[in-house]
């Protein structure tokens, strides 16, 4: 936790492909960026949802994977030394006495800047919550969707639900600490890394983990303390399993989150912008990529790149009001080439 505010030119909310490319366009125009993202890695949907999937419609790249595009963008923006605040949610946005924006994250990071660029795509990635009746009353008491500190789970009777990497990783990490660990998945196949699956199978064979195949349909307990779950197998009768901690790991979903409370005009959870500057109804707050809307909008990465370039022109006028905006090409401008750390032939 820090109470010292970081000062920069531009805060970018969202480190997906469009947020990353915005660093490049802003950097060419002499603006420094800090990026905030709720994920623990950069790349947004490209890195979280489809790192291995090929993308075929990035100009000049006949085929690139989500992770490949992310890596290439990170290399491209390296000369501009962007600062990343990962694993943090942009929580509140206020104005300072001298007219700058002050963004506070849920980790206590405070960043002050002239410009805010919202490149938050479909919103914040948050854990999927099983639609089991009454689960809310257990949340944060005995139902957890993430692990902040492993020690919290020592000597507990843990039930982990899910079949992906998060479910398997936490099964393996928490098993030594737990009094008892039960893994529940709806089928006896796991899409997690084969190595994790093998280790889990070995622990099951050694009697150190219980594995049950089925879906959780009911929670038992009171006052927020879970005592058991009812499991429905594919065939046969439902039965109960005792536990004092339930950890569902079903992947992530997207929610707009606190951006909705930033005082910007929203329409159907999107931020309407003009198509000259991609600015919201609040001057100096811009929205680019999947989160904005305007007539003819296409939710494509390439549209976001274009929006980033135009946004950067207007941002320059706010950040450097005393300077004249000069349009230059990277092919011919020694000024731009210096910024990129390259020398022309």
């Amino acid at each position, binding site marked *: 936790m820090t109470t010292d505010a970081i000062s920069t030119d531009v805060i970018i909310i969202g480190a997906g492909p469009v947020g990353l490319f915005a660093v490049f366009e802003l950097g060419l125009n002499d603006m420094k960026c800090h990026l905030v993202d709720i994920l623990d890695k950069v790349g947004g949907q490209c890195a979280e949802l*489809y790192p291995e*999937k090929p993308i075929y419609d990035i100009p000049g790249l006949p085929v690139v994977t989500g992770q490949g595009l992310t890596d290439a963008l990170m290399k491209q923006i390296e000369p501009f030394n962007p600062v990343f605040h990962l694993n943090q949610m942009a929580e509140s946005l206020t104005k300072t006495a001298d007219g700058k924006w002050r963004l506070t994250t849920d980790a206590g990071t405070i960043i002050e800047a002239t410009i805010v660029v919202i490149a938050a795509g479909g919103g914040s990635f948050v854990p*999927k919550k099983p*639609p089991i009746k009454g689960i809310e009353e257990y949340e944060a008491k005995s139902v957890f969707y993430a692990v902040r500190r492993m020690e919290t789970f020592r000597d507990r009777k843990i039930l982990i639900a899910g079949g*992906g990497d998060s479910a398997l990783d936490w099964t393996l990490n928490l098993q030594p600490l737990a009094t008892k660990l039960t893994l529940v998945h*709806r089928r006896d196949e796991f899409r997690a890394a084969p190595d994790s699956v093998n280790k889990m199978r070995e622990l099951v064979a050694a009697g150190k983990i219980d594995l049950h195949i089925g*879906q959780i349909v009911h929670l038992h307990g009171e006052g927020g303390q879970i005592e058991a779950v009812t499991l429905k197998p594919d065939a046969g009768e439902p039965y109960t399993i005792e536990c004092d901690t339930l950890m569902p790991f*079903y992947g992530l979903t997207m929610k707009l989150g606190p951006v909705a409370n930033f005082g910007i005009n929203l329409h159907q959870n999107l931020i309407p912008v003009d198509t000259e500057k991609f600015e919201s109804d609040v001057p100096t707050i811009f929205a680019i990529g999947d989160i904005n809307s305007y007539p003819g909008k296409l939710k494509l990465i390439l549209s976001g790149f274009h929006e980033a370039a135009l946004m950067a022109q207007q941002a320059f006028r706010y950040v450097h009001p005393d300077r004249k905006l000069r349009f230059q090409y990277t092919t011919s401008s020694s000024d731009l080439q210096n910024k990129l750390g390259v020398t022309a032939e």
Partner: protein
Amino acid sequence: MKLLVTDLEGVEHSIDAMPNWTVMEIIRDGDLPMRAECGGSCACATCHVYVAKEWIDKLPAMEGEERDTLDGGFEVEPNSRLSCQLIMTSDLDGLKVTLTQDSAG
């Protein structure tokens, strides 16, 4: 060609179905709720639907990737499918699906 979609309230909607479109796209085009967060790349399970029993066998069988991604869905049943993986053809005129909490919740 029609697609019959039952919403979470149990109301059935008959919507126009275009050949070679995915069932996910058709539902979205028909102005019914359809989250489909990953945009149809079989990566998120938020286009999960139930297919009416009589239609199950008329659909191409589920592939491994769809089966894996369905792990991110809830209340998965034997007739669960990801609608982004179902491509509409004339054989499927009148296909009946029901939205789920995942796709429309």
